[in-house]
């Protein structure tokens, strides 16, 4: 297996365009990557707006799972489109151009997706290649977690008890890796796998922030599971600040 990791790791390194030997560590813990200093102190502050009337989210029939259904006041719905005051949540934004050469430090936050009330929390998240994603089950019932990537290898594991966790490492950048549960066909999550740490997910108020960057001009791409991708550009000035916004419309 070690040989396998090395091969995948090497491919990752090539895929990064010489992104550095850090990425080549694959699944193994890399001390250098974890302790690398940030490339800069600048921050991209962003906002995702939404115009028009958001489509209604589909109702979920949770009658077979009273344990989960009980967690919702009324009829549970699948939060495909989360819009609040004209702001769109769950948009995955990442830097696609303008980055200085790596190696890049690993994000400070350890990514984790939890299964609560027969939904994934969060629904959209990012991980860096080689970084361990934790998948946890807080429901006291059976979930299976199936990752259905195309560039990475997938998996399909069961978590029949609350408290179970699994760590998984994706070695290739991929936008996005879907997670799904087949016991509960409505359950969907999306993991953005990026070969650097400059990504974020818009909050319920539509905001996101990508830090640790030096001044410069960066290309960005935003992704939403229903409304697709949009590109943008932002410049971080000498003051270390850059702002950008994306606007999705109900008709798009």
């Amino acid at each position, binding site marked *: 297996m070690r040989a396998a990791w090395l*091969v995948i790791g090497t491919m990752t390194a090539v895929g990064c365009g010489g992104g550095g030997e850090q990425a080549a560590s694959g699944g193994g813990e890399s001390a250098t990557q974890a302790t690398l200093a940030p490339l800069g102190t600048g921050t991209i502050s962003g906002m995702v707006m939404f115009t028009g009337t958001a489509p209604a989210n589909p109702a979920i029939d949770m009658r077979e799972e009273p344990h989960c259904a009980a967690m919702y006041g009324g009829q549970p719905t699948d939060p495909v489109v989360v819009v609040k005051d004209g702001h769109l949540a769950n948009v995955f934004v990442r830097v696609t151009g303008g980055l200085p050469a790596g190696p890049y430090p690993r994000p400070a936050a350890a990514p984790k997706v939890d299964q609560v009330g027969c939904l994934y929390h969060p629904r959209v998240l990012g991980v860096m290649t080689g970084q361990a994603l934790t998948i946890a089950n807080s429901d006291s019932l059976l979930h299976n977690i199936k990752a259905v990537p195309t560039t990475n290898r997938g998996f*399909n594991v*069961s978590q029949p008890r609350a408290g179970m966790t699994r760590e998984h490492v994706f070695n290739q950048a991929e936008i996005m890796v879907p997670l799904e549960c087949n016991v509960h066909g409505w359950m969907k999550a999306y993991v953005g796998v990026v070969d650097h740490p400059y990504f974020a997910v818009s909050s319920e108020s539509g905001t996101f922030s990508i830090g640790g960057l030096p001044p410069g001009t960066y290309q960005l791409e935003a992704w939403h599971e229903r409304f697709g991708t949009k590109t943008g550009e932002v410049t971080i000035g000498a003051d270390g600040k850059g702002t950008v916004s994306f606007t999705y419309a109900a008709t798009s």
Partner: protein
Amino acid sequence: MNRGSALRGTRFGRLAWRRGGVMLLVLAGSAMLPTPERLAAQDLTRGKAVYDRWCAGCHGETGAGDGEAMTYMLPRPRDFTRAVYQVRTTATGGLPTDADLMRVVDEGMPGTTMPGWRTRLSEPERRDVVAYIKSFSRFFEGETPTPLEFGKAPRVTAEGLAEGERWYRELECFKCHGDAGRGDGSSAPTLTDDWDQPIRAADLTRAWNFNGGASVEQVYRRLQTGLDGTPMPSFSDAVEGEILTAEQLWRVAQWVHSLSPERPAVREVIRAPRLEGAIPAGPGDSAWAAIPPAWVPLVGQIVIKPRWFAPRVDGLWVRAAHDGQTLAVLIAWSDPSRSPDAAWQEWIERVAGALTDADGPVPTTQGPDRLHVQFPLRPPEGLERPYFLGGDPRRPTYQWQWTSVPDAVQEGRGTGLGAFTAVPTTAVRHAAEFGDGEWRVQFTRSLLTADTAAAPAFPVGEAVPMAFYAADGSDGEDERRGAVSAWYAIYLDVPTPPRVYVAPVLAVLVTAGLGGLVVVRAQRRARST
């Protein structure tokens, strides 16, 4: 050098060593000379030739599972470009070993349209095609997958089976596979594979359809590895996380194995024993338990358009009995839905989307479940029987056509598939029960009828041809898209005639009498001399 020393131990080796040791070394050396790349290139050229000829029609020229026949099949042919394989000895997400791939090529995928190739292709051809299949995905480059260690099954015990059943429920296997294992769990109608195509939860009472094999060991491997590309997950985390022990997971495999008989032998004649008591009153009558069922395999109707290559019903369990006056036939089969069933609406829509073949659109509204039983309308002359698909105008069939909605049986005359004219005889009665993913339908009819031109008599002591048709309305099936059997026969046992019991007694008495006569005469003769 090693090769040489190993050979030296044998007689042939000693000889070879003495006479041509040097030459042998040269040969051995040259056999190792070609680089792996060169060997692989040869394999790939030959493998491609085999693949293009035998595999591409379904799996597509580029291995993307998109061959011409794709939209006739469910599950669809494997897409090799993603290197996601169901039947492996490696962990979930892992690549299959060459032996894993070879096994599927050799044995095929039971329950799907993938046949086994062991008898059709030579061993080198199969090996080459495996090499070629791997070349469709970059994931195999430089990889040597390592199989998992599976250990050994504990001895089967009654307690062990009970524990297996307990864990089947604890692990919520029933969510997909159903309480009785017939693939009718609450999540079953929602299941899709990695290519968003509908996929059926395995019917655990039909182990001969298990993709990865029917043995306890094979079932255990599927529990450990999962069936990648399908909703079936690996339970290895549950063992590693000490939710249950490996032995308990073996118990689940043993219990699952116990749900299915061995692949039943197919006999052409269905025997209807003559009962002394009353014939069974309905499908739930305990009297049926004493009568062994006959297995009648069904296959997709692929003769008349619209053809159907993905039938839901793969066979029927048929029991029959009579009492000299009345014939009762009990037919049971797995069907996860009592059609129409709202829970299966999204399923039928997915099936219609997957099987968009040239034979016409698959219905997206659910019809009833169907079971048709047919006999020749007129006693066959010699071996001639009506056309097996519902009969033909020259040799019509006498049919019982049962539907789930309305729950009714129609009697009538068939002259072909879908060509059926109901007749207002009321000779046949029926009772249908549905539960745990199984239909049990009993037909009852008097042996003799008033109008033999419309409903022929069932003679005792003669084999009467009998054939079947079944359809699952929630699976897009109807009067033509469904599963058919070949002709079988039903034989109503003759009542044991009284002479069978009387004749031996008479023979004994006569023999004894004659013997006595001989003795008496001999004594008389002795006295008189």
